[in-house]
């Protein structure tokens, strides 16, 4: 046989005979996929938990867990490879891409370096890689401007390398905290590198510094002069100029009312960070469009003043660690502007913030040239004014027509007038505290009000204040912890660490969220993503029920709101109006405001969220947990679109289920003896495959009756469906719009519509069942073993899908969780996906629980359209729990949590 023949055979083998795997092998792989799927979800939850601040972990943990999860995802795809004949090369490609990105993060190579390689590859003409990397990096409009320019709306704290600290922070203040900033963009450090390289400046710097005697001031001055001169006359690479031009078009185009003039400011690596470099670099105000590049050169030249060079030399900063990004923002016609410290550097017991303000542009205040008003304000809301010292403000800085700035006289009647109204002062105080709360450090905030009472944040940087007497501080901490009354502690899970004080606001429905007061502590029965609306106002969040891995947890971390979920009692114990302090690091709720905890929080050495470990884990998680492929019916639900491990996991699971169902159909025709359709009063469209003593129908029979089902779990589930009567009385839709959309929405692909029952499958033996049930748009998986040996028994229940919006689906998820928890299931919710697990109960109890699941499947069939508000969760949960009492097993067997612990089923492990 020739080689070609062999190849042909191999091909035909691949195309036609692949599915004829022994069913047991096939099914074993399928179960392995299920198990691995769970393991991966657990690892993801585990990693997410670590961001909460309750855990102590190091880099080694991140490396270990990343390796572990990568291995599991790889094996998951390999398992699928055995099951399906579909081409899974794309899945492996997606896996490799993600694994590579994680590896780069772990090796400390950040996106900026990828940007650099992107640009190099582009020059070399490697189009493929260029497109790949651009797709990776492209965000918003900035995608077209990268790598030299990024618009402010696309920035956040992760962009420090490209945008420098100042503008990365400003982006975060705008985009995460939702505060007003002036429209603009940043010219990235990539532009800096290219400019420096193109003009041979790094070479000069390197050469000169090598032989430099640090004490030789003359040599340093000469170096400074050379560098500055060359920068001011240097040629800007054409690509950078055109990127800046395009950014200017965007900014000026969307702000037609304003003149197109800019404030151009430095945003260097490390500036405003550990070394503040405060005031060392230049800013240029009121720059016209035509002179932007010139202003850029001026700011960049300020990197090489003698002072800046010396400052870096003395602190051991290497020049390779120096890079300058330059921010360009529209000018504000400031009526008043100034600076604000959230922690006043005064020797006093009183905790105060201090505002300095003057008429006109802010440079006057910052540089201390002109006199300003000084206002001390209480740090605690409602931010009472403690004292005002008016300054005699005779001149102010204003923008000059056509560019530049000029000093103007202040009219006599305004010179002694306080430049800020009480309302302005309060707004400033709130805003500054919001920034401080987020960064967990006292802040130095530059701000401006325009003539229309709009407040703009110009920049914010950490203020390095330490208490004068750390020992005294320690005592107060010590005493505070002893003297404050603890309301409860150690309950539930910390989602986001930190300390927050305020008045409790207990929310009962969607409606009352509108009235959520600024600076309050949110207390709710459940976690919900809709609280994102008030996260910027909340000082802390406590819920009775909920998981640390849900949507809300992600949001709480994003906004850094101290949050504890699953306390069990918060909404019962705390009343609206109570003043409390949550220490979400020690997980304690204190009565009243514990000032000492608040100040300890913002003065102790390390902010967890700013640590290398936190940021690395967060970046790694970005490649692991977000689920982008949510709808199997959509076009984008494809292997090639997988951007995270979660996406891969989801696609693999979906494909595995599909091929199992397909196989069962084929199997049916080939093994008529052991695969039958269930004849049942409820149209489940269920095919049952018996792999061992699971049924007792006559050999050769095509159908199966309920009495012939011998499999304990399947029998219990089916009986639960009928006996509970939940199917027939499924709640009627009350919300017509949503119901109509559930009827008219079109589906394609694997997502079966309600008319398409008939692709359901159960694989059973006497004690075992693996059930896949699509009903309407809901998708249930139940995997269970129920036998005599208590230790072998388990039920695994997975519920997903639905047709209404995500809020309603999540509510339904929480209803299901509520019911399952009442019956001792350990429940995890990920958005609208619920996983419930129950282990090691006696066979009798397991049968009862399985009947409840039967009832629940019937009950929730169309329920999500009814879930119009959070109050519906408790309502329907109570309704179900009452109606399920119709089952004998439920009446006789109270859930374990109400039984004495001497119960034989009690399992502490």
């Amino acid at each position, binding site marked *: 046989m020739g080689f070609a023949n062999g190849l042909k055979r191999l091909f035909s083998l691949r195309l036609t005979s692949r599915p004829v795997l022994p069913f047991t092998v096939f099914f074993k792989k399928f179960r392995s996929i299920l198990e691995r799927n769970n393991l991966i979800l657990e690892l993801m939850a585990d990693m997410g938990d670590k961001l909460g601040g309750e855990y*102590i972990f190091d*880099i080694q943990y991140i490396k270990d867990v990343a390796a572990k999860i990568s291995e599991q995802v790889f094996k998951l795809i390999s398992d699928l490879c055995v099951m399906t004949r579909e081409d899974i090369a794309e899945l492996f490609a997606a896996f490799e891409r993600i694994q590579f990105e994680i590896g780069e993060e772990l090796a400390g190579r950040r996106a900026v370096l990828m940007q650099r390689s992107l640009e190099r590859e582009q020059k070399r003409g490697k189009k493929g890689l260029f497109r790949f990397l651009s797709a990776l990096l492209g965000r918003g409009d900035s995608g077209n401007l990268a790598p030299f320019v990024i618009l402010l709306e696309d920035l956040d704290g992760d962009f420090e390398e490209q945008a420098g600290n100042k503008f990365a922070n400003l982006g975060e203040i705008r985009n995460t905290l939702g505060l007003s900033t002036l429209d603009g963009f940043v010219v990235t450090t990539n532009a800096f590198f290219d400019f420096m390289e193109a003009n041979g400046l790094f070479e000069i710097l390197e050469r000169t510094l090598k032989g430099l005697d640090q004490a030789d001031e003359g040599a340093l001055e000469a170096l400074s002069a050379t560098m500055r001169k060359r920068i001011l006359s240097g040629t800007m690479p054409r690509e950078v100029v055109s990127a800046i031009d395009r950014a200017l078009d965007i900014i000026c185009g969307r702000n037609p009312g304003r003149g197109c003039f800019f404030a151009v400011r430095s945003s260097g690596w490390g500036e405003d960070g550990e070394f503040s470099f405060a005031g060392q670099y230049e800013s240029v105000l009121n720059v016209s469009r035509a002179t932007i590049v010139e202003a850029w050169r001026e700011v960049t030249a300020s990197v090489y003043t003698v002072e800046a060079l010396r400052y870096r030399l003395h602190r051991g900063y290497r020049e390779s660690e120096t890079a300058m990004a330059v921010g360009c923002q529209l000018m504000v016609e400031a009526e008043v502007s100034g600076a604000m410290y959230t922690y006043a550097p005064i020797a006093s017991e009183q905790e105060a913030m201090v505002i300095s303000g003057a008429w006109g542009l802010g440079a006057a205040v910052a540089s201390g040239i002109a006199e300003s008003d000084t206002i001390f304000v209480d740090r605690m809301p409602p931010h009472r004014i403690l004292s005002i010292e008016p300054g005699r403000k005779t001149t102010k800085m204003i923008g000059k027509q056509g560019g530049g700035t000029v000093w103007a006289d202040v009219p006599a009647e305004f010179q002694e007038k306080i430049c800020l109204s009480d309302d302005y002062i309060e707004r400033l105080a709130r805003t500054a505290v919001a920034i401080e709360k987020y960064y967990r450090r006292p802040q130095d905030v530059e701000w401006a009000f325009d003539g229309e009472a709009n407040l703009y944040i110009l920049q914010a940087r950490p203020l390095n204040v330490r208490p004068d007497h750390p020992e005294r501080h320690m005592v107060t901490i010590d005493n505070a*912890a002893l003297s404050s009354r603890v309301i409860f502690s150690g309950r539930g899970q910390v989602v986001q660490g930190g300390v927050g004080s305020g008045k409790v606001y207990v929310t009962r429905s969607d409606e009352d969220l509108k009235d959520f007061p600024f600076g309050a502590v949110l207390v709710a029965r459940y976690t919900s993503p809709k609280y994102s609306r008030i996260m910027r106002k909340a000082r802390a969040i406590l819920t009775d029920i909920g998981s640390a891995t849900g949507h809300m947890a992600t949001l709480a971390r994003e906004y850094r709101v101290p949050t504890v979920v699953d306390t069990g009692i918060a909404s019962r114990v705390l009343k609206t109006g109570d003043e409390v302090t949550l220490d979400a690091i020690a997980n304690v709720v204190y009565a009243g405001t514990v000032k000492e905890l608040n100040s300890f929080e913002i003065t102790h050495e390390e902010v967890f969220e700013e640590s290398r470990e936190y940021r690395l884990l967060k970046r790694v998680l970005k490649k692991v947990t977000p689920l982008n492929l949510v709808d199997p019916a959509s076009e984008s639900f494809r292997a090639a679109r997988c951007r995270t491990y979660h996406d891969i996991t989801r696609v693999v699971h979906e494909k595995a289920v599909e091929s199992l169902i397909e196989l069962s159909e084929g199997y049916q025709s080939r093994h008529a003896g052991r695969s039958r359709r269930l004849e049942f009063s409820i149209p489940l469209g269920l095919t049952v495959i018996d792999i061992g003593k699971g049924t007792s129908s006559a050999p050769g029979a095509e159908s199966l009756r309920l009495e012939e089902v011998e499999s304990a779990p399947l029998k219990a589930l089916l009986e639960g469906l009928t006996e509970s009567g939940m199917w027939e009385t499924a709640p009627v839709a009350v919300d017509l719009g949503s119901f109509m959309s559930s009827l008219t929405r079109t589906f394609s692909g694997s997502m079966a519509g309600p008319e398409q029952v008939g692709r359901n499958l159960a694989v059973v033996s006497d004690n075992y069942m693996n059930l896949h049930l699509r009903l309407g748009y809901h998708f249930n998986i139940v995997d269970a073993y129920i036998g005599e040996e208590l230790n072998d028994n388990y039920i695994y229940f997975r519920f997903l899908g639905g047709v209404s919006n995500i809020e309603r689906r999540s509510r339904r998820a929480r209803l299901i969780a509520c019911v399952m928890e009442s019956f001792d299931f350990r429940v995890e919710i990920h958005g609208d996906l619920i996983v419930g697990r129950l282990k090691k109960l006696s066979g009798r109890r397991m049968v009862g629980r399985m009947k409840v699941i039967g009832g629940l499947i019937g009950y929730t069939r169309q329920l999500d359209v009814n879930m119009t508000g959070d109050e519906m969760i408790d309502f329907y949960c109570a309704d179900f729990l009452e109606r399920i009492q119709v089952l004998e097993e439920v009446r006789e067997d109270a859930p374990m949590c109400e039984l004495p612990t001497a119960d034989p089923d009690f399992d502490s492990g």
Partner: protein
Amino acid sequence: MPPCANCQRQTQILILDDEPIVCKRLKPGFQKAGYGVETFTDSGLAMARIEQKRFDVVITDLKMEGIDGMQFLVRVKQIYPDTGVIVITGYGGAEIAKESFKKGAFDFIAKPFKLGEIIEAVKRFEKSRKKD
């Protein structure tokens, strides 16, 4: 005057871990719970420190450059048999745990752990010491 009113009664803890993040996170956690804390990322320096000062509790990592945690544990118990040593490690095998206990460790905690867990361990040690 002593720098703080209750310093005499304050339990003194030394923390040794070559990963700075562990020290940085544990220190404020213990301070807030009312303990006196000194942290070290260099085992040599920690060794020198215990020769000078007696600590009630020592928390140490195992795998480190130079003097490793096991050696450190042995030396601490040699000088101060009453000091409680808590071992924290990312390589939490049963064998290593057994060895630590044999050498006199009070507790063995696998990384990563919750701040509450380790404070709890210290409290358990304080209680056990009171009983004696």
